């Protein structure tokens, strides 16, 4: 950028201009720095994350199934989200995104989704009660994942059907040599493999607890989560009602559950001392939640689980038991699988459309504003850089993902951003038409244009905010980019477009009104009008000097004069058809 030659003669606007440009430089450097820091230390990236429609993947929207009129609380939704997240994570899917949108839960999973994972997400989890047959510390030895024990291999060689028909769920006869082998070799790390920890209800199951600290060989299902009516946490109370200060989880079974549990508890209580066979396990989604031992035969269907609970852990367990998993049931509202090829082609067409749009805008502005168009183009480039950095940073910090609708928002923003430059340039031209010198025309035009730009951009921002707050799904993504670019637009106009024009006004090319500058007073009719009538601002200004700016008044007098002249002559063109 050439240093202005007339710095001494017009110090104020020039110095202001350089100050603004410095600020802009600082802002861009800062954004750049934040992003660089993110890339180096925080797992950020130089490219924004893409939404599923551009990247390919699966998106499932789950809508809560509630009775009409009933409300879904945020707490319930949060709980559902965390449970669904556990399930998806348990499937070993990386980078899944689960969050709420309005009352809906949206699950986004990159890449392809296998049927088991899909079922896990869409179905309510299964809570099962099984008696413990064997328990051991988990073997998390460094077995390489490829050799993780496959249940079928040893089963081919070893006996897999019980030699003696087991009499009940705790009968050691369930433990066939094949199961024993599977149990011995079971690696809790394999819990992530969806196929390892599922078993039919009437067959034993080998699994681990959630913490992967212990592994279990469990008998068939004795009771299931549907039979649990309620589960709460509370202090253990003595018979006199005094609190012992120990946290416990209280379960209430329904009739069928009470029956089943009476049978199990009686049996397990009878096995007291024969650890681990006096334990029973609550299995959620194939993993053991807890496996307490039976301290009494419970016949009223109201067992109490005690242990090393804190208030939080007892509450968490109670919730998990009570909800069988999800606090509310969901229906699949929509489910999209987008192939990566389609995503890429959508991204491509979006980018190409943006490029073409940009080129068209550039051509049009050059045609309209000649050399002045360079300011527009440079401003668009600056706005583009800031927008890109902001989106990249937001996608790193806030998990924002650029969708096709978002890209459309960005492309549309090219035009909206260029609009504010046009408003500004037209105002400067108006001032030139009134016979001002370029430097003062830029200042006066800016004062008027700035107000208009702010007011009009405020309506844009308002629309974006309202849409963002109230809308769902793709509308949100669009509103987000619209709002972001509106703010950036205003920043660029203040810190770049105006300062640049201030500086350019100092150059000979522009101030002399070169025909190619786009600010040629002659072309703008200023001289012509000057010749036509003598300008006499003093006559009118005296009366209303108080309220409005001087330049406005001077312009008005001309306009009024013209209007008066128009009364006779101009009327013929008032039919709106001259072109």
């Amino acid at each position, binding site marked *: 950028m050439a240093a202005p030659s007339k710095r001494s003669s017009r110090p104020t606007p020039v110095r202001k201009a350089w100050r603004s440009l410095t600020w802009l430089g600082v802002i861009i450097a800062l954004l750049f720095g934040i992003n660089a820091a993110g890339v180096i230390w925080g797992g950020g990236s130089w490219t924004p994350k893409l939404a599923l429609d551009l990247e390919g993947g699966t998106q499932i929207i789950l809508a809560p199934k509630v009775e009409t009129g009933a409300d879904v609380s945020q707490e319930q939704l949060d709980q559902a989200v965390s449970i669904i997240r556990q399930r998806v994570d348990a499937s070993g899917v990386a980078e899944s995104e689960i969050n709420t949108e309005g009352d809906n839960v949206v699950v986004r999973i990159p890449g392809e989704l296998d049927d088991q994972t899909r079922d896990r997400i869409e179905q309510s989890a299964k809570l099962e009660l099984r008696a413990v047959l064997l328990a051991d510390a988990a073997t998390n030895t460094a077995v390489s994942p490829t050799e993780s024990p496959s249940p079928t291999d040893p089963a081919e060689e070893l006996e897999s059907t019980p030699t003696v028909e087991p009499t009940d769920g705790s009968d050691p006869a369930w433990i066939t040599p094949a199961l024993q082998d599977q149990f011995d070799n079971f690696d809790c790390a394999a819990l992530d493999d969806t196929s390892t920890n599922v078993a039919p209800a009437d067959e034993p199951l080998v699994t681990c607890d959630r913490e992967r600290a212990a592994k279990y060989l469990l008998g068939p299902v004795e009771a299931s989560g549907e039979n649990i009516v309620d589960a709460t946490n509370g202090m253990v109370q003595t018979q006199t009602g005094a609190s012992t200060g120990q946290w416990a989880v209280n379960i209430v079974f329904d009739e069928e559950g009470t029956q089943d549990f009476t049978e199990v508890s009686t049996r397990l209580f009878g096995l007291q001392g024969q650890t681990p066979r006096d334990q029973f396990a609550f299995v959620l989604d194939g993993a053991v939640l807890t496996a307490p031992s039976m301290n009494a035969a419970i016949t009223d269907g109201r067992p109490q689980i005690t242990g090393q609970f804190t208030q939080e852990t007892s509450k968490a367990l109670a919730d998990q038991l009570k909800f069988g998993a999800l606090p509310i049931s969901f229906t699949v509202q929509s*489910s999209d699988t987008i192939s990566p090829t389609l995503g890429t082609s959508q991204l491509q067409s979006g980018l190409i459309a943006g490029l073409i749009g940009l080129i068209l805008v550039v051509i049009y502005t050059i045609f309209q504003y000649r050399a002045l168009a360079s300011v527009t183009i440079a401003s668009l480039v600056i706005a583009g850089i800031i927008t890109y950095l902001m989106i990249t940073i937001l996608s790193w910090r806030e998990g924002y993902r650029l969708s096709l609708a978002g890209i459309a928002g960005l492309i549309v923003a090219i*035009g909206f951003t260029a609009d504010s430059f046009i408003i500004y340039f037209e105002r400067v031209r108006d001032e030139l038409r009134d016979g001002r010198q370029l430097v003062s025309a830029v200042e006066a035009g800016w004062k008027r244009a700035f107000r208009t730009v702010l007011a009009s951009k405020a309506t844009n921002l308002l*629309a974006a905010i309202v849409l963002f707050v109230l809308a769902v799904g793709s509308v949100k993504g669009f509103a987000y980019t619209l709002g972001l670019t509106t703010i950036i637009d205003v920043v660029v106009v203040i810190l770049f477009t105006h300062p640049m024009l201030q500086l350019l006004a100092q150059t000979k090319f522009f101030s002399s009104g070169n025909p190619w500058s786009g600010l040629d007073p002659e072309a703008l*009719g200023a001289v012509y009008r000057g010749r036509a009538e003598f300008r006499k601002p003093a006559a009118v200004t005296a009366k209303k000097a108080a309220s409005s700016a001087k330049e406005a008044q001077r312009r008005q007098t001309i306009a009024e004069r013209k209007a008066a002249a128009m009364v006779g002559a101009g009327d013929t063109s008032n039919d709106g058809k001259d072109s």
Partner: protein
Amino acid sequence: MAKANRLTTFGNDLYTGKRSFNFVGGRKKWYTIVAVLLLLSVLVPILRGVNFSIEFRGGSQFQIAGVENAEEQPAIDAVESVVPDATAHVTIVGSDGIRVQTDQLEQADSRAVTTALAEAYGVPESEVTSSFIGPSWGADVTRQALVGLVAFMLLAAVIMALYFRTWKMSLAAILALIADLVATVGIYAALGLEISPAATIGILTILAYSLYDTVVVFDKIRENTAEDGQESRRTFAESVNLAVNQTLVRSINTSVVAALPVAAILFLGAGVLGADTLRDISLALLIGILVGTWSTVFLAAPLYSQLREGEPEIRRHDQKVLKERERAGAPSAEVLPTA
């Protein structure tokens, strides 16, 4: 003046008043045109029926990109092999894209159709995009959009009334905005295109654009009418009209510049599979930008002028101006726009 391009010269003439379009005075004509347009916007979709996209109807949709034999029959056969009684609507998008829409399918069926389609067109299964949309999805989006719409209009009305210090500008702007929305939806539907969530986005964006445009023009009107005050030798309506004319070049430039990128999306989006989102947004926006720009000029400004002309102070001023004009011997051809 030789080097000035035509639009610049045009702008000069409009600015000085040498050339002027009678937007305010001819309002009866414009109102009639607007009324006819609005009536058509309401009637045509009713008579023709509005097509709602699959997101609103509910259903299953499959898309396959990059197929070599872009024919419809294999897709129909593939769907029938899985669900015999389902009717499949097959569309060929661009040169190598296939879109199949069916009624809502069960998860299992949906997967089977995916497999069958992949086989039929000889592409890997991962290349088949499938969507299942419950019927409530589109309704949810629409309801939220409508809530947003009303909330925005109320807020915008209040903010504009505060900014311009007159509720009449606010009212005129909102009325023009409503006309924009109705006309845009009407034209969009009359073109026989499906109303999709993407189109809803486009229509909502018009809220922002239309009002934005109106604010720019109204700001100039406010400037002219406020600064003219009692000294003005123009009637109120003439002041408003001059302001509209003075910002006309800006209106043309901004609408062209805003429309160009949108048009670019439209042309690209039309021929590419899966870019329906782009196509629908851009079409709704393109219509909206054009309608929004011209509604400011032909509807919002005359409405505002009409709302204000009845005020006693303005009427007194207008009469004074006209009387002075008569005394000066000017021909009374300058008909006061209040007819």
